[in-house]
């Protein structure tokens, strides 16, 4: 990455304090943040939600919400004091020198204007009109590697995929050749493969442009790949800063240490140890902080930490840590013991046996095969991980199992040897309670009008067949098993944090002693520390109750942690199916290989990466032959286009749908040695 060439700082925050006015009180959100981004530097800001990351971004352009105000400190952009600009100068600064890219490109683009119109508008503001503006816009789209800019210019935002939309948003941000580019969670809503593309693009653009970058993300791995320096924000304070490599490899603040430990790393699996968690909660906005803000959640905290606010200690080499005991930060004891109960390998008959399952939707008269010929089996106490990009049929498959959607005729689903009716209404009570789900979004999954007690009691009554005293006893057990307390029963879902809500959803799924629980991205809306706690909980419940999971996630690290078997789906077809270790360690299907390679990794072992071109094709019009041939980096020839490969057994229990023989795949993939997530 380029070293800053000249001395001027692109962005300098001095003692920046920001407060939001809530309920007639100013509540501090940022507390004396000092931060400098040198010209040409990429600076990453990490921390859990509610730490004030986005507030930093909004303050830089003085774009805070109405109830937000800058209560102290200064902001200098290119040496220019943003606080002193009048509205015209501020407008010009926003137009000329800063650009922002937000998380959701769908909302950042105007849905009723064509892409071309939105792009040329920027140049018109700068006084370039007509054909010149159009040419510039085309050039801009070329720059963000959009292959047919002319046709993209004619389209509306909804006609583009998420990754394309984000490219357009980046093109718009770069149009005015800004000196400062602020990226606020630019890849959070995107598939891993698309995320990888967008990150590659940003990386390439960094080399071409002079812009400094403020990169905000909750994803530590993404930041570690993109940034030169990184700052860790906690409760509106910068608690650690340094070069990315140093901070992630040798963290000096217990919060950073704890955050890094929450991630399943290096192929860690549930039977090898539990993930570490961070106990307690982030201080609320505006909370009075006496000593160290992290003291309540820090196992290393002493009396001194609780009374004396730590300064930002300088550790040399530009490293800063706001911890009295920064030398010992890494000796932070685990909040959750790693040991797991030993699980004896099972040879029980499968709890779930799916054979030749198909689901075809009608879409404008064309059949849309959402799930095609899927067969899997799962033993009690095992987890089947479903991976694939969005649109690969993961959720449809889960809904078929649950009976929420009826499959096409022909296939069969057997639960403990007995056939499951295709429709939920025709399944027996026992079968209904045996297959339950934990939804992705607890806000949608829990009825906001009902108390937690009502939600869980109803589930116990209907699924557990309980009532009266036995119900109350079981309710208490259930609440305790997901580590909630009686106090949580009286409240409504909105009064709980995301992690607690998800615990309620898990408790509900377990109310009737299910045999199979579908977990549909259960942690994707949660912070890493909360995610770790939920994954631990799921693993514990599984080892205790011998329940099987169908685990859907786009986060391969998470899938690997929890899964015993993996099914890789593409356009509704299983491309690879086998034991988790075999699928992850390879040799694997070229698609699996690409998925694994797309995952940003914390340890920057940048091996050559595989990128998938373009988007997942429409299921209404799938490619002929092998459905993956249009994007396959290992396509061998005409056979891929004409003949659909069969799922062939590579090793016992490990099947791959590819024309390339297993031995050949092994040879092709060996030198690469793709590092697992």
């Amino acid at each position, binding site marked *: 990455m380029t070293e800053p060439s000249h001395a001027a700082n692109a962005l300098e925050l001095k003692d920046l304090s920001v407060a939001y006015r*809530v*309920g007639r009180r100013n509540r501090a959100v940022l507390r004396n943040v000092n931060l400098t981004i040198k010209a040409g530097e990429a600076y990453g800001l990490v921390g859990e939600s*509610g730490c004030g990351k986005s507030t930093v971004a909004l303050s830089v352009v003085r774009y805070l919400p109405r109830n937000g105000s800058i209560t102290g400190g200064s902001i200098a952009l290119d040496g220019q004091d943003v606080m002193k600009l009048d509205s015209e100068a501020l407008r010009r600064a926003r137009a000329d020198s800063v650009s922002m890219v937000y998380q959701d490109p769908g909302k950042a683009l105007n849905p009723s204007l064509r892409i071309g119109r939105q792009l040329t508008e920027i140049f018109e503001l700068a006084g370039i009109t007509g054909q010149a503006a159009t040419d510039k816009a085309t050039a801009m789209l070329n720059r963000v590697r959009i292959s047919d800019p002319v046709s993209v210019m004619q389209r509306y935002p909804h006609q583009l995929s998420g990754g394309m939309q984000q490219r357009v948003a980046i093109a718009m941000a770069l149009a005015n050749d800004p000196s400062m580019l602020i990226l606020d969670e630019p890849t959070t809503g995107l598939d891993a493969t698309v995320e990888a593309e967008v990150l590659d693009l940003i990386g390439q653009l960094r080399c071409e442009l002079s812009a400094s970058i403020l990169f905000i993300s909750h994803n530590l791995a993404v930041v570690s790949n993109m940034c030169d320096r990184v700052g860790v924000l906690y409760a509106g304070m910068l608690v650690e800063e340094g070069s990315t490599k140093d901070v992630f490899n040798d963290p000096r603040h217990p919060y950073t240490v704890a955050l890094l430990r929450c991630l399943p790393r290096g192929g860690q699996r549930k039977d090898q140890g*539990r993930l570490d*968690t961070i*106990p*307690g*909660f*982030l*201080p*609320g*906005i505006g*909370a009075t902080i006496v000593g160290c803000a992290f003291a309540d959640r820090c*196992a290393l905290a002493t009396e001194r930490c609780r009374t004396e606010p730590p300064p930002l200690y300088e550790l040399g080499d530009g490293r800063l840590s706001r911890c009295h005991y920064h030398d010992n930060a890494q000796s932070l004891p685990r*909040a*959750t*013991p790693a*040991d797991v109960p030993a699980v004896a390998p099972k040879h029980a008959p499968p709890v779930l046996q799916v054979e030749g399952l198909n689901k075809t939707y009608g879409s404008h008269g064309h059949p849309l095969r959402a799930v095609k010929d899927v067969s899997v089996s799962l033993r009690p106490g095992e987890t089947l991980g479903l991976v694939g990009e969005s649109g690969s049929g993961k959720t449809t498959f889960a809904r078929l199992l*649950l009976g*929420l959607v009826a499959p096409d005729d022909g296939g069969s689903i057997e639960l403990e040897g007995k056939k499951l009716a295709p429709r*939920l*209404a025709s399944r027996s*009570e026992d079968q*209904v*309670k045996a*297959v*339950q*789900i934990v*939804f992705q*979004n607890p806000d*949608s*999954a829990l*009825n*906001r*009008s*009902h108390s937690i007690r009502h939600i869980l009691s*109803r*589930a116990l009554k*209907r*699924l557990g067949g309980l009532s009266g005293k036995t119900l109350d006893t079981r309710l208490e057990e259930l609440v*305790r*098993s997901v*580590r*909630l*307390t009686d*106090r*949580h029963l009286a*409240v*409504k879902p*909105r*009064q*709980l*944090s995301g*992690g*607690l809500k998800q615990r309620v959803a898990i408790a*509900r799924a377990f109310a009737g002693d299910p045999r199979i629980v579908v977990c549909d991205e259960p942690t994707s809306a949660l912070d890493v520390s909360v995610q770790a*706690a939920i994954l*631990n909980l799921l693993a*514990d419940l599984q080892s*205790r109750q011998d329940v099987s999971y169908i685990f859907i996630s786009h986060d391969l690290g998470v899938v690997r942690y929890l899964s015993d078997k993996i099914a890789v789906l593409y356009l509704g077809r299983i491309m690879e199916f086998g034991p988790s270790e075999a699928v992850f360690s390879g040799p694997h299907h070229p698609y699996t290989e690409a998925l694994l390679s797309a995952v940003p990794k914390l340890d920057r072992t940048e091996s050559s990466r595989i990128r998938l071109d373009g988007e997942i094709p429409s299921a209404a019009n799938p490619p002929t032959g092998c459905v993956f041939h249009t994007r396959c980096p290992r396509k061998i020839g005409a056979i891929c286009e004409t003949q659909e490969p069969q799922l062939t057994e590579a090793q016992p229990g490990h099947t791959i749908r590819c024309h390339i023989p297993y031995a050949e795949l092994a040879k092709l993939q060996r030198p690469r040695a793709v590092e697992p997530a």
Partner: protein
Amino acid sequence: MSATDTPASPPAPAAPDTASRSPWGEVLHSLLRSGTFLTGLFILLFWVVCALFGQYFVPYDPLASDIINALTPPAADHWFGTDQLGRDVFSRVIVGSRDILTVAPLATILATIAGTALGLLIGYFRGIVDDIVSRVLEAFMAIPVVIIALLAIVALGTSKITVIVVIGLSFAPIIARTVRSAVLAERELDYVAAAKLRHEGALHTMFVEILPNVIPPILVETTVRLGYAIFAVATLSFMGFGIQPPSPDWGLSISSNYGMIGGGFWWTVLFDALAIASLVIGVNLVADGVHGAFND
């Protein structure tokens, strides 16, 4: 469960940054800060008090005729003048809200109950039921309320009950349509799927799971409908249906006096008309306030 796998500290009862107020508390709070709502409420309460207690404080018996003093213009002893039978217009206007404030709200409540049930049904089941019922409702809504009312009254005979039922049923489709669209959004949420995965019956899912979450739009629509119902009741009694003499009802009074405006006896009509207008405006202000409180 072993003690070791418990998190080091128990989770706090609630995320610290969520507001302490419940959603309904928040709505109430914003209602009480809304000038629109409070003005409307003031007007509405004024007429409710008049309806309930007007008879105890009006200067004259609103029904007592005094032919000698017929058609006197507004003056100190008859603030709003007297009508052709010599009845005190002021007393009649004050007490005249009684019938309309019984009939219109009852009609609105009937419309809300019928409309909510229907809306839940077609929104939840969708499909062919929805297609058929929705088309019928649309056809029904195309016919002016007054025409339906006239037909019904001719068939059933005129009475307050008939008016309540007729207005209630003719407003029900509008409420049903509002409820339906709210239910369509709601039924896609995962808690409805979760209810299915407990084999809950359709009635439970509709009324226990979905209904509480669609109350806000129902409340808004109900207050808006109340304004229209008042107007409809006044129109019908003006036409001689529903509320019958000798009630001092506003619509009825206007109907029996408007022939005399030409003779210059404006006071026999104006104050009743203003009373109807103020009540409708009051209810509409309340409706605006409620809408604002739920939607900001």
